[in-house]
């Protein structure tokens, strides 16, 4: 196994573990906001590591750019989604 492949595997496995951590956080943390925090961590880092790991495998520059784009878009979506959800949670709290 070459160095690149080892790098890929390490990154990718680390990413998978982060996803697992995100799920665990979703399950174990006590309140909605801290769960949200766990979720966005998993999103950010897990996908980031997997993208990082897969970058060396890309045949073309275009493929690499696309991967980075995916990660950036995921960041953007996750950030907004988190805020939206936090907003709902905040609005709901007084009533509930």
């Amino acid at each position, binding site marked *: 196994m070459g160095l690149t492949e080892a790098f890929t595997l390490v990154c990718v496995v680390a990413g998978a573990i982060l996803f697992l951590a995100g799920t665990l956080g979703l399950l174990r943390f006590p309140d909605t906001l801290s769960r949200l925090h766990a979720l966005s961590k998993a999103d950010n880092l897990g996908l980031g590591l997997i993208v990082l790991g897969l970058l060396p495998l890309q045949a073309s520059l275009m493929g690499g750019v696309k991967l980075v784009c995916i990660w950036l878009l995921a960041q953007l979506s*996750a950030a907004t989604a988190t805020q939206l*959800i936090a907003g*709902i949670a905040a609005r709901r709290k007084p009533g509930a």
Partner: protein
Amino acid sequence: MPESLTLVALLVLLASAAGLAIVLRSAVAIEKLMAVQLLGTGGAATLLLLGAATAQPALADVALLLVLLSAFSCAAFTLGEGEDPGDAAKPDEPA
């Protein structure tokens, strides 16, 4: 290598789906939404890994779509959330 990538893809998918499975049965709507979000990102990661494993670079496009639209359901969800049944302003049927 493809085998290990597929295995990792399976792990990511299971991790995202496990959260969904547990949350869907018990918790409140927001947490279900969060689990769906997690599945969206996890799904994108899974697709990237599968694409690398099976040498189908086009799968990255699918992942791109998933992340592009993942905030979308979240946005739709918030719309129903803002107004209570008693709200005077009915956005869809103005008087």
